[in-house]
């Protein structure tokens, strides 16, 4: 078996035929600006799905539609057997968590506390119980802390556990943000440019973590990325957007050979 075949067979085991999410005919516009024009694609359970495209292609808008930040004028989303658009907190309770293009961490809080906030949806006891920190509330906190520690161990950030995130270098902050998203134990993880602003080494680390998350926990991942080479290396299938429209959808090799994609990235005279 050649290396490529080996990778392919590993991917076959990992990805099931089951569709986790299907995005159908999404149209989104802000006033006269058409951000998304009739975009449809699906995400299979267990795969790493990438959305790529040049600047302003509508990638982040698409992610915001998926987890309910934006409400499209038309179209709907099918997720885990249910059809319909979700609000952000619904998406979170249903196992969708995300990271942001521009970091959205609590800068004054430690790494540990930031990741703990990712457990928010898992905490059942109300504020009063937690304030008393007694009995069931304490047990619950221990359980959540354990989950957070697993994430810390997984992302190898033990040494910054008690460091306020504002003091950390950018690459590590990105990793903490991934940690917070992971702490929610998502089924679908949305990553908005997880590698932007990173140097080569940090990118390599981040790639490894994304692959490991997918491999160890079976988490389905949908990521947006600017850096083509990174995307092509780690994703199973790629959607390409340009000016709000889907221009290609397929495996990295198929997408790479697609003339419309080459034109969109290199630019052609219209």
């Amino acid at each position: 078996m050649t290396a490529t075949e080996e990778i392919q067979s590993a991917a076959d085991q990992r990805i099931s035929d089951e569709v986790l999410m299907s995005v159908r005919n999404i149209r989104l516009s802000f006033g006269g600006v058409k951000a998304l024009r009739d975009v449809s694609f699906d995400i299979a359970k267990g795969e790493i799905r990438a959305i790529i495209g040049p600047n302003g292609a509508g990638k982040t808008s698409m992610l915001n539609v998926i987890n309910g930040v934006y409400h499209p004028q038309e179209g709907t989303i099918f997720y885990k057997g249910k059809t319909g658009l979700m609000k952000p907190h619904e998406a979170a309770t249903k196992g969708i968590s995300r990271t942001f293009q521009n970091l959205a961490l609590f800068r004054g809080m430690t790494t540990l506390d930031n990741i703990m906030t990712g457990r928010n949806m898992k905490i059942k006891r109300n504020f009063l119980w937690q304030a008393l920190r007694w009995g069931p509330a304490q047990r619950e906190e221990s359980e959540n802390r354990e989950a957070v520690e697993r994430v810390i161990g997984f992302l190898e950030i033990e040494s910054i556990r008690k460091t306020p995130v504002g003091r950390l270098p950018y690459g590590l902050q990105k990793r903490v943000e991934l940690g917070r998203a992971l702490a929610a134990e998502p089924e679908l993880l949305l990553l908005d440019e997880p590698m932007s602003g990173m140097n080569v080494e940090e990118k390599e680390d981040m790639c490894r973590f994304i692959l490991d998350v997918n491999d160890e926990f079976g988490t389905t991942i949908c990521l947006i990325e600017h850096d083509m080479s990174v995307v092509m290396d780690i994703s199973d299938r790629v959607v390409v957007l340009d000016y709000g429209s889907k221009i290609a959808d397929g495996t990295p090799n198929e997408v790479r050979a697609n003339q419309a994609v080459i034109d969109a990235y290199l630019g052609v005279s219209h």
Partner: protein
Amino acid sequence: MTVSVDIAKYDTFPKLLRFNANSRAGLPAMREKDLGIWQTWSWAECAEEIRALACGLKALGLDKGDKLAIVGDNRPRLYWAVAAAQSIGAIPVPVYQDMAADELKYVLDHAEVRFAMAEDQEQVDKLLAIAGKSEALQAIIYCNPRGMRHYEQDYIHSYADAVEKGRDYDRANPDFYVQAVDATTGADTSVMAYTSGTTGQPKGVVLSHANILKTAYNAAVWENLQESDNMLAYLPMAWIGDYIFSYAQSYVVGFCVSCPESPETVMTDLRELGPTYFFAPPAIFENLLTTVMIRIEDAGWLKRKMFHYFMAVARRCGPGIADGKAVGLVDRALFGLGNILVIGPLKNILGLSRVRLGYTAGEAIGPDIFNFYRGIGLNLKQLYGSTEASVFVTIQPNGEIKPDTVGTPSPDVELRIADDGEVMFRSPGVFQEYYKNPEATAKAKTADGWVHTGDAGFIGEDGHLRIIDRAKDVGTLTDGSMFAPKFIENKLKFFPNISEAVTFGADRDYVSAFINIDLNAVGNWADRQNISYASYQELAANSQVYDIIAEHIIQVNEDLAKEERTAGSQIRRFLILNKELDADDGELTRTRKVRRGFVADRYAKLIDALFSDLTHCEIETQVTFADGRTDTVKADLELRTLPAPSREAGAAARHAAE
């Protein structure tokens, strides 16, 4: 009586383990963090794990006399693997975890390693990269299952798997383990330690149980170690010091050894554990001091003043107080106040509050750095030793600590200075041989057991040994003045801005130096000056950085001028290297000692330029990345000449002192 074990009866580590499991069953033996919480294994629990693992290794096919490589950071499971291998008469061969694959291959081939115990996927991958090429390597056992799910090779086993097999084997052959341990003898090989070597290929130093046990025991009795002591094992397991301190002495004395959560958390772990017994090579003490100095420079005005004031007090009278000498009442009071305001909290931050005994060895420590730590009340001692001696040759006795000596011979060690000034020793710890290298053995060890150290030194009237330098490194300038490179470099390295220095001057007209700046310290300074930089290379080429380094060197020169012996070897010219000296490039040993000959060869062009009138020199250097890829870096380096050293100033200073 603190060390209560009879080492004539319990003459091997597996037997000592049995003793500890009986007499100290419930006492802590090892600690490691899991999910952020310290977990403890008692001696009885360790003994059970080791028994299961030993049987597991046997079941997987490891036999008496076979070698088991240990590859990874300090982990309880790896320490157990050492004991497990010894229990069945196999020989542990710990290797440096940061070795590149081909270095590792050399050691594994040379030692004919059959089994390897690896910490994690990274190490397994490294082993797999060479497993095909190494004939002997037959099985790999990994401790951390992360990322290992897709490895389907039948010769790769998980730790849990090995232990499981071991328990089955133990049930089927209940007498095996006990008999195997009974069969071990003091003459058996305890460990094969590959020395990093400042020259040539690594050599496998064969040390018997008797060598290690007797030496560890002697030093433990001498220093009055207690079973209530505890230590953090954070230095490479392949280094003989770690084997002695974190393994041998722990077994002999029964104290608890903790493993850091990860190499990056050592500082936090130190603070949480508060070890009482601490070892660090000079480089670590230098780094700690640099970190402190950087933080202080960032602190507020009042704190900065307080720090410097009380550190001056500590330097002046701290060592005296620690040694119980007469110190004036005012000084005592000031020191007491400083202890509350500055020194105590500082020690606490460094995790050194509870240290009863600290050692530094490996190479000479700068007297200023040494006095700093002595000053803050740390019982820091220098010791002198080598792998070939099972570490201990000399130790500084309590109350007789002088920065310029390495102490008196430790118990049972005989010391003599050869006619050419080389230090030689004979002790129960003297190694058996270099594995498969009788010529080297014969060269290093005389027929009656004396070992050549390769260091030049002399024994003072007080009976203390003083090491001048590596014998072959000490030279003379063309005008006949002595040139001891290490001595000058240590003075340079005291400045937080300088992380490494290499000086040249043997048979030359004057001394010149290569400098590596400390990226943290200088980077911090640059931040405060609003100097932007993107890399080490850029910062190193900055002319303002050259200015501060020049100032430091001038200070060193003034220092050198004060001593007649060293006045001639003041530094005239220097440059800041465009890359940090690195073990991956072969410029340092794995224990971070400069490989002088190699550096001189590699940078011959720069050295020639330093001894000419050039003000600039272009250089192309090869760098090796952690994964073995190489790349070349080009740079145009500035060479800076310092004002001619004034001997008159030195003479005047001396005159004033008299």
